[in-house]
Protein backbone atom coordinates (compact mmCIF):
# COMPACT_ATOMS: atom_id res chain seq x y z
CA UNK A 1 0.00 0.00 0.00
CA UNK A 2 1.30 3.39 -1.02
CA UNK A 3 0.57 6.24 1.46
CA UNK A 4 2.55 9.43 0.72
CA UNK A 5 3.57 11.20 3.94
CA UNK A 6 2.85 14.72 2.62
CA UNK A 7 -0.90 14.02 2.30
CA UNK A 8 -3.71 13.83 4.85
CA UNK A 9 -6.38 11.10 4.82
CA UNK A 10 -9.97 10.50 5.89
CA UNK A 11 -11.56 7.43 7.46
CA UNK A 12 -13.57 7.04 4.25
CA UNK A 13 -10.31 6.75 2.23
CA UNK A 14 -10.00 10.10 0.49
CA UNK A 15 -6.68 11.93 0.41
CA UNK A 16 -6.30 15.72 0.74
CA UNK A 17 -3.45 18.01 -0.11
CA UNK A 18 -3.85 21.36 1.68
CA UNK A 19 -2.21 24.48 0.22
CA UNK A 20 -3.32 27.62 2.05
CA UNK A 21 -7.09 27.84 1.63
CA UNK A 22 -7.07 25.38 -1.31
CA UNK A 23 -7.46 21.63 -1.11
CA UNK A 24 -6.85 18.94 -3.73
CA UNK A 25 -8.83 15.74 -3.19
CA UNK A 26 -8.59 12.17 -4.47
CA UNK A 27 -9.03 8.50 -3.51
CA UNK A 28 -6.32 6.58 -1.67
CA UNK A 29 -4.35 3.66 -3.03
CA UNK A 30 -6.03 1.43 -0.43
CA UNK A 31 -9.45 2.53 -1.73
CA UNK A 32 -8.70 2.02 -5.43
CA UNK A 33 -7.31 -1.42 -4.68
CA UNK A 34 -10.37 -2.39 -2.66
CA UNK A 35 -12.76 -1.08 -5.34
CA UNK A 36 -11.06 -2.80 -8.27
CA UNK A 37 -11.04 -1.62 -11.89
CA UNK A 38 -12.88 1.70 -12.06
CA UNK A 39 -14.96 2.33 -15.15
CA UNK A 40 -16.98 5.46 -14.40
CA UNK A 41 -16.64 8.64 -12.36
CA UNK A 42 -19.23 11.28 -11.60
CA UNK A 43 -17.80 14.65 -10.55
CA UNK A 44 -19.47 17.88 -9.40
CA UNK A 45 -19.25 21.03 -11.50
CA UNK A 46 -16.97 24.01 -11.06
CA UNK A 47 -18.69 26.49 -8.73
CA UNK A 48 -20.64 23.82 -6.80
CA UNK A 49 -20.55 24.08 -3.02
CA UNK A 50 -19.16 21.01 -1.25
CA UNK A 51 -19.57 20.13 2.41
CA UNK A 52 -17.15 18.29 4.67
CA UNK A 53 -18.41 14.76 5.34
CA UNK A 54 -20.91 14.75 2.47
CA UNK A 55 -20.87 12.91 -0.85
CA UNK A 56 -19.39 14.96 -3.72
CA UNK A 57 -18.67 12.27 -6.34
CA UNK A 58 -19.24 8.62 -7.10
CA UNK A 59 -17.04 6.03 -8.69
CA UNK A 60 -18.15 2.81 -10.29
CA UNK A 61 -16.18 -0.36 -10.67
CA UNK A 62 -17.40 -3.16 -12.88
CA UNK A 63 -19.14 -4.59 -9.82
CA UNK A 64 -20.43 -1.68 -7.75
CA UNK A 65 -21.00 2.01 -7.13
CA UNK A 66 -19.22 3.78 -4.29
CA UNK A 67 -19.73 7.27 -2.94
CA UNK A 68 -16.78 9.58 -2.44
CA UNK A 69 -16.97 11.95 0.54
CA UNK A 70 -15.61 15.45 0.66
CA UNK A 71 -13.01 15.99 3.42
CA UNK A 72 -13.51 19.77 3.35
CA UNK A 73 -16.20 22.42 2.87
CA UNK A 74 -15.74 25.06 0.19
CA UNK A 75 -16.33 25.76 -3.49
CA UNK A 76 -15.23 23.56 -6.40
CA UNK A 77 -12.49 25.52 -8.22
CA UNK A 78 -11.47 22.88 -10.73
CA UNK A 79 -12.40 19.32 -11.71
CA UNK A 80 -10.12 16.73 -13.30
CA UNK A 81 -11.85 16.21 -16.63
CA UNK A 82 -9.31 13.58 -17.66
CA UNK A 83 -10.85 11.20 -15.14
CA UNK A 84 -14.24 11.42 -16.85
CA UNK A 85 -12.75 9.92 -20.01
CA UNK A 86 -10.32 7.57 -18.32
CA UNK A 87 -11.32 6.47 -14.80
CA UNK A 88 -8.61 3.77 -14.94
CA UNK A 89 -6.12 6.55 -14.10
CA UNK A 90 -7.36 6.30 -10.50
CA UNK A 91 -6.24 2.67 -10.41
CA UNK A 92 -2.95 3.39 -12.14
CA UNK A 93 -1.83 6.41 -10.12
CA UNK A 94 -4.28 7.30 -7.32
CA UNK A 95 -2.22 10.23 -6.03
CA UNK A 96 -1.88 11.85 -9.48
CA UNK A 97 -5.52 11.24 -10.31
CA UNK A 98 -7.03 14.06 -8.25
CA UNK A 99 -10.83 14.49 -8.43
CA UNK A 100 -11.40 18.16 -7.56
CA UNK A 101 -9.69 21.26 -6.24
CA UNK A 102 -11.64 23.18 -3.60
CA UNK A 103 -11.15 26.88 -2.81
CA UNK A 104 -12.24 28.98 0.21
CA UNK A 105 -11.84 25.91 2.42
CA UNK A 106 -13.75 26.28 5.69
CA UNK A 107 -14.56 23.22 7.82
CA UNK A 108 -12.59 20.03 7.41
CA UNK A 109 -13.28 16.46 8.43
CA UNK A 110 -11.07 14.84 10.99
CA UNK A 111 -7.90 14.20 8.99
CA UNK A 112 -5.25 11.60 9.63
CA UNK A 113 -1.53 11.54 8.94
CA UNK A 114 -0.13 8.81 6.68
CA UNK A 115 0.92 6.73 9.70
CA UNK A 116 -2.47 7.03 11.35
CA UNK A 117 -4.20 6.20 8.08
CA UNK A 118 -2.13 3.06 7.54
CA UNK A 119 -3.14 1.85 11.00
CA UNK A 120 -6.76 2.65 10.18
CA UNK A 121 -6.54 0.56 6.98
CA UNK A 122 -5.09 -2.41 8.89
CA UNK A 123 -8.36 -2.57 10.81
CA UNK A 124 -10.62 -2.28 7.76
Amino acid at each position, binding site marked *: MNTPAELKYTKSHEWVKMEGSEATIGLSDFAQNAL*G*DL*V*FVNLPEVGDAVTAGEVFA*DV*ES*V*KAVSDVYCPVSGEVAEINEEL*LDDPAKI*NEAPYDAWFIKVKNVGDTEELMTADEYEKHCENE
Partner: protein
Amino acid sequence: MEKKTALYDKHVACGGKMVPFGGFILPVQYETGVIAEHMAVREKVGIFDVSHMGEVLCTGKDAVKYLNHLLANSYDGMYDGQARYSPMCNEHGGIVDDMIAYRINEEKFLFVPNAANKDKDFKWMQEHVIGDVKLEDISETMGQIAIQGPNSKAVVLKLAKEEDLPKKYYSATFDKEFAGKKVIISRTGYTGEFGYEIYCQKDDTPAIWDALMEAGKEYGLIPCGLGARDTLRLEAGMPLYGHEMTDDISPLEADLGIFVKMDKEEFVGKEAIEKMPLNRIRVGLKVTGRGIIREHMDLYVGDKKVGISTSGTQLPFCGGAYAMALVDVAYKEIGTKIEADVRGRRVEAEVCPLPFYKREKK
Protein backbone atom coordinates in the same frame (compact mmCIF):
# COMPACT_ATOMS: atom_id res chain seq x y z
CA MET B 1 -21.63 -20.06 7.32
CA GLU B 2 -20.38 -20.20 3.75
CA LYS B 3 -18.81 -23.39 2.46
CA LYS B 4 -15.34 -23.49 0.99
CA THR B 5 -14.76 -25.25 -2.30
CA ALA B 6 -11.83 -27.66 -2.59
CA LEU B 7 -9.91 -24.81 -4.28
CA TYR B 8 -10.21 -22.26 -1.46
CA ASP B 9 -6.48 -22.40 -0.59
CA LYS B 10 -5.54 -22.08 -4.28
CA HIS B 11 -7.63 -18.91 -4.61
CA VAL B 12 -6.11 -17.32 -1.53
CA ALA B 13 -2.59 -18.24 -2.73
CA CYS B 14 -3.38 -16.61 -6.12
CA GLY B 15 -4.48 -13.38 -4.39
CA GLY B 16 -8.21 -13.99 -4.82
CA LYS B 17 -10.55 -11.49 -3.15
CA MET B 18 -12.89 -13.88 -1.40
CA VAL B 19 -16.61 -13.06 -1.12
CA PRO B 20 -19.75 -14.99 -0.18
CA PHE B 21 -21.81 -16.19 -3.14
CA GLY B 22 -24.65 -18.71 -3.25
CA GLY B 23 -23.67 -20.22 0.09
CA PHE B 24 -19.99 -20.49 -0.86
CA ILE B 25 -16.95 -18.32 -0.40
CA LEU B 26 -15.42 -17.69 -3.81
CA PRO B 27 -13.01 -15.23 -5.46
CA VAL B 28 -14.74 -12.22 -7.03
CA GLN B 29 -11.43 -11.43 -8.72
CA TYR B 30 -7.69 -12.07 -8.44
CA GLU B 31 -4.92 -9.47 -8.46
CA THR B 32 -5.27 -9.18 -12.24
CA GLY B 33 -8.71 -7.54 -11.85
CA VAL B 34 -12.06 -8.07 -13.56
CA ILE B 35 -11.14 -6.35 -16.84
CA ALA B 36 -7.92 -8.32 -17.44
CA GLU B 37 -9.71 -11.56 -16.50
CA HIS B 38 -12.58 -10.78 -18.86
CA MET B 39 -10.22 -9.99 -21.72
CA ALA B 40 -8.15 -13.15 -21.09
CA VAL B 41 -11.27 -15.22 -21.76
CA ARG B 42 -12.15 -13.29 -24.92
CA GLU B 43 -8.62 -13.34 -26.33
CA LYS B 44 -6.74 -16.25 -24.72
CA VAL B 45 -8.03 -18.50 -21.97
CA GLY B 46 -9.22 -18.29 -18.37
CA ILE B 47 -10.17 -20.86 -15.73
CA PHE B 48 -12.94 -20.55 -13.16
CA ASP B 49 -13.74 -22.51 -10.02
CA VAL B 50 -17.40 -23.36 -10.53
CA SER B 51 -17.51 -26.05 -7.86
CA HIS B 52 -20.39 -24.20 -6.23
CA MET B 53 -22.76 -25.37 -8.98
CA GLY B 54 -25.12 -28.14 -7.89
CA GLU B 55 -25.18 -31.66 -9.32
CA VAL B 56 -28.24 -33.89 -9.05
CA LEU B 57 -28.41 -37.40 -10.52
CA CYS B 58 -31.71 -38.70 -11.82
CA THR B 59 -32.00 -42.42 -12.50
CA GLY B 60 -34.90 -44.69 -13.39
CA LYS B 61 -36.80 -46.07 -16.33
CA ASP B 62 -39.15 -43.06 -16.41
CA ALA B 63 -36.30 -40.52 -16.45
CA VAL B 64 -37.16 -38.99 -19.85
CA LYS B 65 -40.83 -38.76 -18.96
CA TYR B 66 -39.94 -37.09 -15.66
CA LEU B 67 -37.63 -34.51 -17.26
CA ASN B 68 -40.31 -33.67 -19.81
CA HIS B 69 -42.73 -33.08 -16.91
CA LEU B 70 -40.31 -31.12 -14.71
CA LEU B 71 -38.63 -28.89 -17.31
CA ALA B 72 -39.97 -26.65 -20.07
CA ASN B 73 -37.60 -27.92 -22.77
CA SER B 74 -38.00 -31.31 -24.47
CA TYR B 75 -35.75 -34.19 -23.45
CA ASP B 76 -36.90 -36.47 -26.27
CA GLY B 77 -34.65 -37.57 -29.11
CA MET B 78 -31.34 -36.94 -27.36
CA TYR B 79 -28.15 -38.96 -27.76
CA ASP B 80 -26.07 -40.18 -24.80
CA GLY B 81 -23.79 -37.34 -23.74
CA GLN B 82 -26.04 -34.60 -25.07
CA ALA B 83 -26.85 -31.60 -22.85
CA ARG B 84 -29.95 -29.41 -22.96
CA TYR B 85 -30.62 -26.15 -21.18
CA SER B 86 -34.04 -25.47 -19.71
CA PRO B 87 -35.97 -23.22 -17.40
CA MET B 88 -37.75 -25.10 -14.58
CA CYS B 89 -41.13 -23.41 -14.10
CA ASN B 90 -43.56 -23.15 -11.22
CA GLU B 91 -47.34 -23.60 -11.58
CA HIS B 92 -47.77 -19.85 -12.11
CA GLY B 93 -45.43 -19.89 -15.11
CA GLY B 94 -42.57 -18.19 -13.24
CA ILE B 95 -39.10 -19.71 -13.09
CA VAL B 96 -37.87 -21.82 -10.15
CA ASP B 97 -34.38 -22.05 -11.68
CA ASP B 98 -32.60 -22.64 -14.97
CA MET B 99 -30.25 -25.55 -15.52
CA ILE B 100 -28.49 -27.88 -17.87
CA ALA B 101 -29.46 -31.56 -17.93
CA TYR B 102 -27.06 -34.09 -19.46
CA ARG B 103 -28.26 -37.42 -20.78
CA ILE B 104 -25.80 -40.04 -19.52
CA ASN B 105 -28.10 -42.74 -20.91
CA GLU B 106 -31.82 -43.19 -21.43
CA GLU B 107 -32.33 -43.93 -17.73
CA LYS B 108 -29.74 -41.62 -16.22
CA PHE B 109 -29.52 -37.83 -16.37
CA LEU B 110 -27.38 -35.26 -14.56
CA PHE B 111 -28.91 -31.89 -13.59
CA VAL B 112 -26.68 -28.88 -12.94
CA PRO B 113 -28.69 -26.22 -11.06
CA ASN B 114 -27.49 -22.90 -9.63
CA ALA B 115 -25.65 -23.01 -6.30
CA ALA B 116 -27.95 -20.56 -4.53
CA ASN B 117 -31.04 -22.50 -5.64
CA LYS B 118 -29.79 -26.04 -5.28
CA ASP B 119 -31.57 -26.98 -2.05
CA LYS B 120 -34.82 -25.32 -3.16
CA ASP B 121 -34.50 -27.08 -6.53
CA PHE B 122 -33.81 -30.49 -5.04
CA LYS B 123 -36.91 -30.22 -2.87
CA TRP B 124 -38.94 -29.05 -5.89
CA MET B 125 -37.60 -31.93 -8.02
CA GLN B 126 -38.53 -34.46 -5.33
CA GLU B 127 -42.03 -33.01 -4.90
CA HIS B 128 -42.63 -33.30 -8.65
CA VAL B 129 -41.40 -36.85 -9.17
CA ILE B 130 -43.55 -38.92 -11.51
CA GLY B 131 -43.02 -42.60 -12.35
CA ASP B 132 -39.98 -44.64 -11.54
CA VAL B 133 -37.12 -42.19 -10.89
CA LYS B 134 -34.67 -41.67 -8.06
CA LEU B 135 -32.95 -38.38 -7.31
CA GLU B 136 -29.60 -38.05 -5.64
CA ASP B 137 -27.92 -34.77 -4.68
CA ILE B 138 -24.22 -35.42 -5.33
CA SER B 139 -23.12 -31.73 -5.12
CA GLU B 140 -21.00 -32.33 -2.01
CA THR B 141 -18.90 -34.96 -3.77
CA MET B 142 -18.17 -33.01 -6.95
CA GLY B 143 -15.86 -30.24 -8.07
CA GLN B 144 -16.12 -28.29 -11.31
CA ILE B 145 -13.68 -26.14 -13.26
CA ALA B 146 -14.54 -24.12 -16.38
CA ILE B 147 -11.88 -23.51 -19.04
CA GLN B 148 -13.06 -20.76 -21.38
CA GLY B 149 -11.55 -18.88 -24.28
CA PRO B 150 -10.13 -19.43 -27.77
CA ASN B 151 -7.03 -21.24 -26.41
CA SER B 152 -9.00 -23.60 -24.19
CA LYS B 153 -8.78 -26.55 -26.56
CA ALA B 154 -4.99 -26.26 -26.80
CA VAL B 155 -4.77 -26.28 -22.98
CA VAL B 156 -7.19 -29.17 -22.58
CA LEU B 157 -5.32 -31.24 -25.19
CA LYS B 158 -2.23 -31.20 -22.96
CA LEU B 159 -4.20 -33.03 -20.27
CA ALA B 160 -6.64 -35.23 -22.21
CA LYS B 161 -6.71 -37.31 -25.41
CA GLU B 162 -8.35 -35.66 -28.39
CA GLU B 163 -10.69 -38.63 -28.91
CA ASP B 164 -11.97 -38.20 -25.34
CA LEU B 165 -13.15 -34.63 -25.92
CA PRO B 166 -16.81 -33.92 -26.72
CA LYS B 167 -17.08 -32.90 -30.38
CA LYS B 168 -20.27 -30.88 -30.29
CA TYR B 169 -21.34 -27.81 -28.36
CA TYR B 170 -23.67 -28.85 -25.54
CA SER B 171 -22.37 -32.39 -25.27
CA ALA B 172 -20.16 -34.23 -22.81
CA THR B 173 -18.04 -37.34 -22.46
CA PHE B 174 -18.08 -39.40 -19.27
CA ASP B 175 -15.44 -41.27 -17.29
CA LYS B 176 -12.57 -39.81 -19.29
CA GLU B 177 -9.04 -39.33 -18.08
CA PHE B 178 -8.01 -35.71 -17.52
CA ALA B 179 -4.70 -34.86 -15.83
CA GLY B 180 -4.73 -38.45 -14.57
CA LYS B 181 -8.18 -38.19 -12.96
CA LYS B 182 -11.57 -39.57 -14.01
CA VAL B 183 -13.85 -36.73 -15.08
CA ILE B 184 -16.78 -35.57 -17.20
CA ILE B 185 -15.66 -33.27 -20.02
CA SER B 186 -18.40 -30.95 -21.24
CA ARG B 187 -18.44 -28.43 -24.09
CA THR B 188 -20.42 -25.81 -22.26
CA GLY B 189 -19.83 -22.53 -20.49
CA TYR B 190 -21.25 -19.24 -19.34
CA THR B 191 -19.03 -16.80 -21.18
CA GLY B 192 -20.12 -16.85 -24.84
CA GLU B 193 -16.67 -18.20 -25.69
CA PHE B 194 -15.43 -21.60 -26.89
CA GLY B 195 -14.67 -23.72 -23.84
CA TYR B 196 -15.06 -26.70 -21.59
CA GLU B 197 -16.37 -27.51 -18.14
CA ILE B 198 -14.71 -30.36 -16.24
CA TYR B 199 -16.73 -32.16 -13.56
CA CYS B 200 -14.57 -34.17 -11.19
CA GLN B 201 -14.47 -35.76 -7.76
CA LYS B 202 -14.18 -33.03 -5.16
CA ASP B 203 -10.85 -34.34 -3.85
CA ASP B 204 -9.36 -34.30 -7.36
CA THR B 205 -10.17 -30.62 -8.00
CA PRO B 206 -6.90 -29.12 -6.64
CA ALA B 207 -4.73 -31.47 -8.71
CA ILE B 208 -6.71 -30.66 -11.88
CA TRP B 209 -6.54 -26.92 -11.12
CA ASP B 210 -2.74 -27.11 -10.71
CA ALA B 211 -2.40 -29.13 -13.93
CA LEU B 212 -4.46 -26.54 -15.83
CA MET B 213 -2.48 -23.60 -14.41
CA GLU B 214 0.75 -25.28 -15.54
CA ALA B 215 -0.56 -26.46 -18.94
CA GLY B 216 -2.03 -23.02 -19.65
CA LYS B 217 1.12 -20.97 -18.99
CA GLU B 218 2.20 -20.91 -22.64
CA TYR B 219 -1.33 -19.99 -23.76
CA GLY B 220 -1.84 -16.97 -21.51
CA LEU B 221 -4.16 -18.73 -19.05
CA ILE B 222 -5.10 -16.87 -15.87
CA PRO B 223 -7.59 -17.71 -13.11
CA CYS B 224 -10.79 -15.64 -13.29
CA GLY B 225 -13.29 -14.77 -10.58
CA LEU B 226 -17.03 -14.28 -10.25
CA GLY B 227 -16.74 -10.66 -11.41
CA ALA B 228 -15.49 -11.66 -14.84
CA ARG B 229 -17.95 -14.57 -14.96
CA ASP B 230 -20.75 -12.01 -14.55
CA THR B 231 -19.44 -9.48 -17.11
CA LEU B 232 -18.75 -12.27 -19.63
CA ARG B 233 -22.23 -13.78 -19.34
CA LEU B 234 -23.79 -10.32 -19.57
CA GLU B 235 -21.77 -9.45 -22.68
CA ALA B 236 -22.89 -12.78 -24.18
CA GLY B 237 -26.53 -11.88 -23.40
CA MET B 238 -26.98 -14.85 -21.06
CA PRO B 239 -29.65 -14.49 -18.38
CA LEU B 240 -28.84 -15.02 -14.68
CA TYR B 241 -31.28 -16.39 -12.15
CA GLY B 242 -32.35 -13.71 -9.67
CA HIS B 243 -31.86 -11.03 -12.34
CA GLU B 244 -33.42 -11.84 -15.71
CA MET B 245 -35.31 -14.81 -14.22
CA THR B 246 -37.27 -15.04 -10.98
CA ASP B 247 -40.32 -16.80 -9.54
CA ASP B 248 -42.40 -14.00 -11.08
CA ILE B 249 -40.86 -13.81 -14.56
CA SER B 250 -42.03 -16.29 -17.18
CA PRO B 251 -39.55 -17.87 -19.59
CA LEU B 252 -41.32 -16.12 -22.47
CA GLU B 253 -40.88 -12.75 -20.76
CA ALA B 254 -37.21 -13.67 -20.24
CA ASP B 255 -37.05 -14.27 -24.02
CA LEU B 256 -36.22 -17.94 -23.51
CA GLY B 257 -39.04 -19.14 -25.76
CA ILE B 258 -36.79 -21.45 -27.77
CA PHE B 259 -36.28 -23.50 -24.59
CA VAL B 260 -40.02 -23.77 -23.90
CA LYS B 261 -41.73 -26.50 -25.89
CA MET B 262 -45.38 -25.54 -25.87
CA ASP B 263 -46.15 -28.50 -28.19
CA LYS B 264 -45.30 -30.93 -25.36
CA GLU B 265 -48.36 -32.60 -23.88
CA GLU B 266 -47.67 -31.10 -20.47
CA PHE B 267 -44.99 -29.71 -18.19
CA VAL B 268 -45.14 -27.85 -14.89
CA GLY B 269 -46.23 -24.29 -15.66
CA LYS B 270 -47.46 -24.94 -19.22
CA GLU B 271 -51.09 -24.07 -18.52
CA ALA B 272 -50.19 -20.79 -16.82
CA ILE B 273 -47.78 -19.81 -19.60
CA GLU B 274 -50.46 -20.50 -22.22
CA LYS B 275 -52.93 -18.19 -20.50
CA MET B 276 -50.50 -15.41 -19.64
CA PRO B 277 -50.53 -12.34 -21.90
CA LEU B 278 -47.02 -11.30 -22.93
CA ASN B 279 -46.86 -7.73 -21.64
CA ARG B 280 -43.15 -7.34 -21.06
CA ILE B 281 -40.01 -8.87 -22.52
CA ARG B 282 -36.26 -8.96 -21.95
CA VAL B 283 -34.25 -6.60 -24.16
CA GLY B 284 -30.70 -5.33 -24.43
CA LEU B 285 -29.90 -1.68 -23.71
CA LYS B 286 -26.89 0.26 -24.87
CA VAL B 287 -26.16 3.29 -22.70
CA THR B 288 -25.80 6.34 -24.93
CA GLY B 289 -25.59 8.92 -22.13
CA ARG B 290 -23.04 9.25 -19.34
CA GLY B 291 -23.35 6.66 -16.64
CA ILE B 292 -23.91 3.01 -15.89
CA ILE B 293 -27.30 1.36 -15.68
CA ARG B 294 -27.19 -1.40 -13.08
CA GLU B 295 -29.88 -3.81 -11.90
CA HIS B 296 -33.25 -2.67 -10.54
CA MET B 297 -33.22 0.81 -12.07
CA ASP B 298 -36.55 2.20 -13.29
CA LEU B 299 -36.80 2.86 -17.02
CA TYR B 300 -38.79 5.68 -18.58
CA VAL B 301 -39.94 7.01 -21.91
CA GLY B 302 -40.80 10.59 -21.04
CA ASP B 303 -42.75 10.39 -17.77
CA LYS B 304 -44.08 6.90 -18.43
CA LYS B 305 -42.41 4.05 -16.57
CA VAL B 306 -41.81 1.33 -19.16
CA GLY B 307 -39.74 -1.25 -17.32
CA ILE B 308 -36.85 -2.10 -15.06
CA SER B 309 -33.23 -3.06 -15.63
CA THR B 310 -32.21 -6.55 -14.52
CA SER B 311 -28.38 -6.49 -14.92
CA GLY B 312 -25.92 -3.98 -16.26
CA THR B 313 -22.39 -2.67 -16.13
CA GLN B 314 -19.49 -1.50 -18.26
CA LEU B 315 -18.59 -4.33 -20.65
CA PRO B 316 -14.84 -4.68 -21.12
CA PHE B 317 -14.77 -6.22 -24.62
CA CYS B 318 -17.65 -4.21 -26.12
CA GLY B 319 -16.19 -1.10 -24.52
CA GLY B 320 -19.34 0.58 -23.31
CA ALA B 321 -22.05 0.39 -20.69
CA TYR B 322 -24.84 -2.08 -21.44
CA ALA B 323 -27.77 -3.50 -19.54
CA MET B 324 -30.49 -6.10 -19.82
CA ALA B 325 -34.00 -5.05 -18.92
CA LEU B 326 -37.62 -6.13 -18.81
CA VAL B 327 -39.67 -3.60 -20.79
CA ASP B 328 -43.26 -3.15 -21.89
CA VAL B 329 -43.53 -4.92 -25.28
CA ALA B 330 -44.53 -1.63 -26.92
CA TYR B 331 -40.95 -0.43 -26.35
CA LYS B 332 -39.00 -3.52 -27.39
CA GLU B 333 -38.03 -2.42 -30.92
CA ILE B 334 -34.33 -1.94 -31.64
CA GLY B 335 -33.45 1.75 -31.49
CA THR B 336 -36.18 2.72 -29.01
CA LYS B 337 -34.87 5.52 -26.78
CA ILE B 338 -35.28 4.86 -23.07
CA GLU B 339 -34.02 6.69 -19.98
CA ALA B 340 -32.96 5.05 -16.73
CA ASP B 341 -33.27 6.66 -13.32
CA VAL B 342 -29.70 6.24 -12.04
CA ARG B 343 -29.81 7.39 -8.40
CA GLY B 344 -32.02 10.34 -9.26
CA ARG B 345 -30.34 11.25 -12.54
CA ARG B 346 -31.67 10.33 -16.00
CA VAL B 347 -29.22 8.34 -18.15
CA GLU B 348 -30.08 7.82 -21.84
CA ALA B 349 -30.01 4.42 -23.50
CA GLU B 350 -31.47 2.68 -26.49
CA VAL B 351 -32.77 -0.81 -27.14
CA CYS B 352 -30.13 -2.83 -28.98
CA PRO B 353 -29.83 -6.44 -30.16
CA LEU B 354 -28.85 -9.28 -27.80
CA PRO B 355 -26.26 -10.67 -27.37
CA PHE B 356 -23.97 -7.65 -27.09
CA TYR B 357 -21.06 -9.88 -28.10
CA LYS B 358 -21.05 -12.88 -30.40
CA ARG B 359 -17.98 -15.02 -30.93
CA GLU B 360 -16.72 -15.21 -34.49
CA LYS B 361 -16.86 -18.84 -35.53
CA LYS B 362 -13.71 -20.02 -37.29
